[in-house]
């Protein structure tokens, strides 16, 4: 049962996180401007609040779940190193250390 939940991908990559933040800020700011102008025209501040709340709901829907569009730029991880080929990989690291000491 738990493994089903764990198999659902929940992460966003770094660019996806930035995109999500820009999307919700844009939506809320636009709905705030629309709501303020509309409330000012009809002289009802309640409608301003309702419109901002609607923008809040829309941006919750768009940015809270980790939609696939926030996972388009996965980090390029190093390939998994097997135990057998472990020794040759250590040599370059030793080289780097030596260079630093020079």
């Amino acid at each position, binding site marked *: 049962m738990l493994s089903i939940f764990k198999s659902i991908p*929940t*992460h*966003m990559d770094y660019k996806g*996180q*930035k995109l*999500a*933040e820009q999307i*919700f*800020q844009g939506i*809320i*700011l636009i709905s*705030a401007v629309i*709501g*303020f102008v509309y*409330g*000012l025209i009809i*002289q*009802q*501040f309640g409608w*301003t*609040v309702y419109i*901002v709340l609607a*923008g*809040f709901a829309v*941006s*919750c829907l768009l*940015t*809270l*779940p*980790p939609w696939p569009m926030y996972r388009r730029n996965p980090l390029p991880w190093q390939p998994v190193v097997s135990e057998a080929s472990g020794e040759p990989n250590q040599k370059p690291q030793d080289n780097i250390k030596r260079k630093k000491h020079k």
Partner: protein
Amino acid sequence: MNTVLSRANSLFAFSLSVMAALTFGCFVTTAFKDRRVPVDIHVSKVMLKNVDDFTGPRERSDLGFLTFDISADLEPIFDWNVKQLFLYLSAEYATKSNSLNQVVLWDRIVLRGENTKLNLRDMKSKYFFFDDGNGLRSNKNVTLTLSWNVVPNAGILPLVAGSGHISLPFPDQYEATKSY
């Protein structure tokens, strides 16, 4: 921003900040508005009695009774930053002991969306017009003013005096107290 909860947190905080800014904007658009409107007050009957004032030092004090008409159009006061008006009719006069006496005679709450045309005829005062002595008899300058508190959604709570007050003289004689 990497988990659902942290995104929900920043989204909620940002929305609240935006809402606070909008509320402040609502206050700014109405902060410098003139909320005075002309008020027409007419007093049709003035009666003066001298009765025992049991709240005071057991002496007889002046008690006035007024019958008045008020008409005003409160529509210009209402805008998107007004929830309700608290109207009150106050009497101001000077006596020998006090240079300024203020007595609230009547009040009314006008909610947003209610009828804003005030047209009241032959109203009796809601509260007793008691002087704390004998300052009402033959007082020639008792000024009635209709004022209001503007209760806003956000911002300051203005206290506005309506333009158009009336000054009336009180009679020289007390009304004969009937004993039953």
